[in-house]
């Protein structure tokens, strides 16, 4: 305490005369350099951006691979790859958003300090934008390395009768450059957007509103759409024409994806209300309330899995059906096997992205609420209880959504695929295994963030006085 030396004039950043301009780069470095912040707060956004970039490049590489094909099925594959891309965009965007929010988060606690020190709004904005962009850029570079390293592994995936090979998903240097720049820009833009709220209210006081009201009308619309889709598919009767079958499947898919988006958050909030009423323990209560707090946010996290589960069941059954009456030529068999592989990969990829989003989001949530966790620890709440509440609030909606949308898919393909369901238990088993693996992956990412929680509790001095 008594050792604090008075500031020496020579320590001033600019010469003896103040220039009136704030040294942005210096401030950003001061706040970011190792030691200024806890390592986790700098490392986490970098890791998050790295994972986002790597997954983005792998998906992009996969899509480009299909677009370079010239064989007879090329057109079909181009279409299917776009479909897969459409399915993966939601979870990928969620992951990118989580990464951006993670780096933007760090500013809240320091912004007030900077403003108190007399920094202008412009300075604060610039420092934050510079910082998140630099972190995102470093993360993106690491992501490129991760992508390159994972290429041989991805190359083992069989397509067209054999493994695709270690360089199959190489996008070339230009797309990589575009992705790196894009990720850095995304971080810059989202930090500016995130900043506005804080600059307006320097105390960072965010008023929590009542949980948003989700309407029964959505549910009604959803039920009507599903009923119409079911009726249409049933009236098609036994289809023998592959083209009509594909059209029917795609139609049912489009309708149901619309339904999922429409009804998902509402269904989640109803689910959480039921859990809330049934809650007996502290962790059940906290997790149910956590989902109810923002069913939309809970949906955003797991919605990607909903779409993919639905497609996995529809397409899985569809391929089984196709196989049952066109196993004559080996080319057809390979084509059908490829579609099934594509379905499984998309399923696994979307679970992976959800797992990463969960990891990133939970890391941020624990750091965000470190004061709360420390105080609960002091009040005597066991760590296990805190952890279980955290795990439940992610796993419950995930299982609910995955199973729910798979059932919806099963309902819709049932009129078409009564036969196929009996014919191909194997393909369904494989899809089932993918589900279990996907859920395990997400559970694993929750496990991976537990040390952050125990670390926060072990170093309470970083939180409360």
């Amino acid at each position, binding site marked *: 305490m008594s050792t604090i030396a008075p500031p020496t004039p020579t320590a001033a950043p600019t010469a003896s005369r103040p220039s009136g301009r704030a040294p942005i780069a210096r401030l950003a470095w001061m706040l970011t350099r190792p030691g200024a912040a806890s390592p986790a707060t700098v490392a986490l956004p970098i890791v998050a951006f790295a994972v986002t970039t790597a997954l983005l490049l792998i998906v992009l590489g996969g899509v480009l691979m299909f677009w370079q094909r010239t064989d007879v099925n090329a057109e079909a594959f181009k279409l299917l790859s776009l479909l897969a891309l459409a399915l993966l965009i939601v979870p990928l965007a969620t992951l990118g958003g989580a990464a951006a929010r993670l780096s933007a988060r760090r500013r809240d606690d320091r912004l007030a300090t900077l403003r108190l020190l007399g920094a202008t709004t412009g300075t604060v904005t610039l420092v934050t934008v510079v910082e998140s962009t630099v972190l995102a850029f470093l993360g993106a570079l690491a992501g490129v390395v991760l992508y390159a390293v994972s290429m041989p592994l991805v190359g083992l995936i069989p397509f067209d009768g054999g493994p695709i090979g270690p360089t199959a998903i190489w996008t070339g240097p230009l797309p990589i450059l575009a992705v790196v720049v894009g990720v850095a820009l995304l971080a810059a833009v989202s930090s500016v957007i995130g900043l506005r709220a804080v600059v307006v209210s320097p105390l960072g006081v965010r008023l929590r509103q*009542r949980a948003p009201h989700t309407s029964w009308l959505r549910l009604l619309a959803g039920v009507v759409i599903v009923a119409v889709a079911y009726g249409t598919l049933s009236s098609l009767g036994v289809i023998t024409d592959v083209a009509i079958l594909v059209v029917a499947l795609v139609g049912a898919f489009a309708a149901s994806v619309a339904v999922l988006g429409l009804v998902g958050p509402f269904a989640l909030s109803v689910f959480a209300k039921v859990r809330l009423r049934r809650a007996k323990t502290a962790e059940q209560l906290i997790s149910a309330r956590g989902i109810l707090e923002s069913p939309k946010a809970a949906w955003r996290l797991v919605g990607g899995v909903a779409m993919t589960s639905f497609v996995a069941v529809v397409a899985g059954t569809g391929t089984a059906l196709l196989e049952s009456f066109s196993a004559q030529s080996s080319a057809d068999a390979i084509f059908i096997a490829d579609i099934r592989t594509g379905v499984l990969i998309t399923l696994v990829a979307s679970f992976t992205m959800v797992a990463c989003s969960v990891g990133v989001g939970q890391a941020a949530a624990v750091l965000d609420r470190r004061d709360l966790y420390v105080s609960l620890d*002091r009040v005597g709440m066991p760590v296990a209880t805190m952890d279980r509440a955290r795990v439940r609030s992610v796993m419950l909606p995930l299982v609910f959504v995955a199973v729910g949308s798979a059932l919806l898919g099963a309902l819709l393909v049932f009129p078409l695929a009564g036969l196929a369901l009996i014919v191909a238990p194997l393909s369904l088993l494989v899809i089932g295994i993918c589900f279990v693996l996907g859920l395990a992956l997400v559970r694993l990412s929750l496990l991976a963030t537990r040390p952050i929680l125990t670390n926060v509790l072990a170093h309470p001095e970083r939180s409360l006085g």
Partner: protein
Amino acid sequence: MNTPLLHASSLVLRYGSTTALAGVDLVINEGESVAIMGASGSGKTSLLHCLSGILRPDGGTVRFAGPTGPVDLSTLSDGERSRLRREAFGFVFQQGLLVPELTAVENAALPLLLSGYARRDAEARAAAWLGALGLRGLEERRIGELSGGQAQRVAIARAQVGGATLIFADEPTGALDSATSVDVMDALLRSTVGQGHTLVVVTHDEKVAARCSRVVRLTDGQIVSDSAGPVPPRAAVPAPGAFAGPSPVTTAVAHVAATDGPAFGGAGWEAGR
């Protein structure tokens, strides 16, 4: 009645090269309200954390006369101390630090749920506490929808709903304006010492301290004044064994049966502001 409830002897606490507590001896009796004062950095929070078993001191002992016999806090494991804090002590911090997504009554009921009470009983008891603290009608509000003073009362309810008779508060009014601060201090005093319980409160506010039965002042990790009597010279402090008497010190954690609810309130309780 001068029954010693908490007995700290020769407490020493260091953070690296900083000595936060340099030999503190303090006996807190049942039914007292003790204000701990001192300049910033004098070791108030450190003392509170050692007394309540949040921190394990580097030297010295803290003995607590629990309902099932004396307990030496420094010999308890982390898990046992955690349980002791949950079941025998109550805490109020500067910021309420309540779980934001839970309602007021759910927050107040949390300790009971953790101790295995049925949810309905836990919430009924918590609601009784909230009512007694002037929060009737606000039970279903979430924390973000409460004022700072109201949230602090929820924290006061949470601290005592489990039947704790020893309450620790670290600057409970530090984040409130002076009028609200008077109300919250009222609520805290009435609900604790008002029904024979014990309160240890760290504060910077002389007005808060003036309402306590005893004021202890710290400077550089040592007690420099104690309104309960002259500070004994270090050598005159009784040996640690003297407090526990002939009975052996048990390490069993006290299980405190929760009372049927707040036994205070009635006239004079204005509605929450």
